[in-house]
């Protein structure tokens, strides 16, 4: 029972990080139909900021907001430089552009920083753990869960009560009509990227604080997982992204904990099979986007 609860805590921590990443993908996708695979590189950028701050001796309370800001600025610049010119292109065009952006950034990291994995100096308390009954719970897990909850509450408030957030929901449903209302296309899209950068930045801090290292390809695996989570939840649906993220987190952690040792090697394929089976039963995802994407003028 204790082991089960402990693994549940781990699943919540990992699932929450996936949920934040999937949300970042979903926010952008819902508004402009782009699956931004360079989302992972936003994480990597935040990771490198944490690393350099650690080297420079900047306190963690300062380096975390710096890393998150860097990821947000990078996201907005990415939109300005790479995605705006192809905004009216097809989904495939934008998808390929995002691959290109991801690869260019990876090469830049490899050449200007280091091709190898670099250690990130973290405050000691993050690697502490404490005991509740028979459970051993890492402080970093608790931090991840709390951060996820705070972000989800913030996002909910923003999307439902702030004028800009409501405008983003309107634009996700009918972009052309949103513009008729005087909602500026550039503002909503830049806002969506800033939000996705914020989510990627927070996710990066959580990701790095579990691993204490950063490398040029760091963003690839989590963003792939987030992509799977977003599909599982229902692409373009924000609630779906959260549901998909947590579901994937639970699948992975429980498989790692409870699969017999001889099957551990097949953990990832088994996890994906579970996702596929879930999708067979719910082809539009766990919480499908309520907006049917019709081609509209």
């Amino acid at each position, binding site marked *: 029972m204790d082991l089960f609860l402990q693994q549940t805590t781990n699943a919540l921590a990992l699932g929450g990080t996936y949920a934040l990443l999937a949300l970042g993908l979903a926010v952008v996708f819902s508004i402009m139909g782009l699956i931004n695979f360079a989302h992972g590189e936003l994480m990597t950028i935040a990771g490198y900021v944490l690393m350099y701050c650690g080297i420079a001796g900047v306190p963690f309370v300062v380096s975390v907001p710096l890393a998150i800001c860097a990821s947000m600025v990078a996201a907005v610049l990415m939109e300005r430089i790479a995605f705006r010119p192809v905004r009216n292109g097809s989904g495939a065009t934008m998808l390929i552009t995002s691959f290109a952006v991801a690869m260019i950034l990876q090469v830049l990291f490899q050449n200007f920083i280091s091709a190898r994995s670099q250690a990130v100096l973290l405050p000691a308390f993050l690697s502490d753990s404490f005991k509740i009954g028979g459970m051993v719970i890492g402080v970093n897990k608790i931090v991840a869960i709390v951060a996820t909850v705070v972000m989800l509450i913030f996002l909910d408030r923003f999307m439902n009560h702030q004028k800009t957030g409501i*405008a983003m929901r*309107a634009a996700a*449903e009918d972009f*052309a009509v949103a513009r008729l209302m*005087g909602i500026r*296309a550039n503002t909503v899209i830049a806002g969506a990227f800033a939000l996705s950068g914020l989510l990627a930045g927070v996710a990066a801090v959580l990701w790095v604080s579990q691993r204490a290292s950063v490398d040029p390809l760091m963003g690839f695996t989590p963003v792939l997982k987030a992509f799977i989570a977003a599909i599982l939840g229902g692409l373009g649906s924000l609630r779906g992204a959260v549901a998909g993220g947590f579901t994937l987190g639970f699948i992975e952690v429980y498989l790692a904990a409870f699969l017999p040792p001889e099957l551990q090697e097949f953990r990832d394929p088994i996890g994906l099979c579970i996702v596929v089976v879930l999708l067979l039963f719910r082809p539009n995802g766990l919480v499908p986007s*309520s907006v049917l994407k019709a081609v509209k003028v």
Partner: protein
Amino acid sequence: MPLLSVDSLQVRYGAVEAVRGIGFEIHPGEIVAFLGANGAGKSSTLNALAGLVPVASGRVVFDGTDITHHAPERLAPMGMTLTPEGRRIFGTLTVEENLRMGAYGVSDRAEMDAAWARVYELFPILFERRSQYAGTLSGGQQQMLAVGRSLMSNPRLLLLDEPSLGLAPKIVEQIFELIGVLRDQGVTLVVVEQNVAMALEIADRGYVMSGGRIVSSGTAGDLSQADRLQAAYLGAE
């Protein structure tokens, strides 16, 4: 001076030429009807005026400003807006959120309060349903929301694309009544309608479109008699 003047407007979708160089003027305080069969190019015309589809050639001047290539988001603050065909309310937003989006560009507090008061007075049902998701409203209520949302930006010129489409006769009557009320409140209106008889009853003037061209125009009285009106419908069928 006309509030809106359009000269040689052309709209194309790839090889399809939907609007083939039309010109017309709308004067302050008028209700002008656009009539014509399905596919005549009426929606394309309004959408081009509102910036939703690009103008291939020609010139559109609103209140002395050339808006031919303005992005759609610039027009509401200037005092012109479109209630598009098929209503296109934001179904996943509440009624109140829809209206709030309609007033997106309004920053003046007093103007905003006046807009809320006006819309809720015109459509008490929207006030009742304000926290409901717009997608759950009936067709007639959705149309009222669509018009209400447009009114939130306090337009001087309102383009209505088929406001009575698919609505029960009783609701259609309400919509036409509303158009009269709006004119009395000082709004200039361009109305695209399939319901020719009712449109000509309320409009001052009308244009008849067919095959992307204006084939007839005149006062509402003239048009209700002209054979050319029938010809435009029959010809395009």
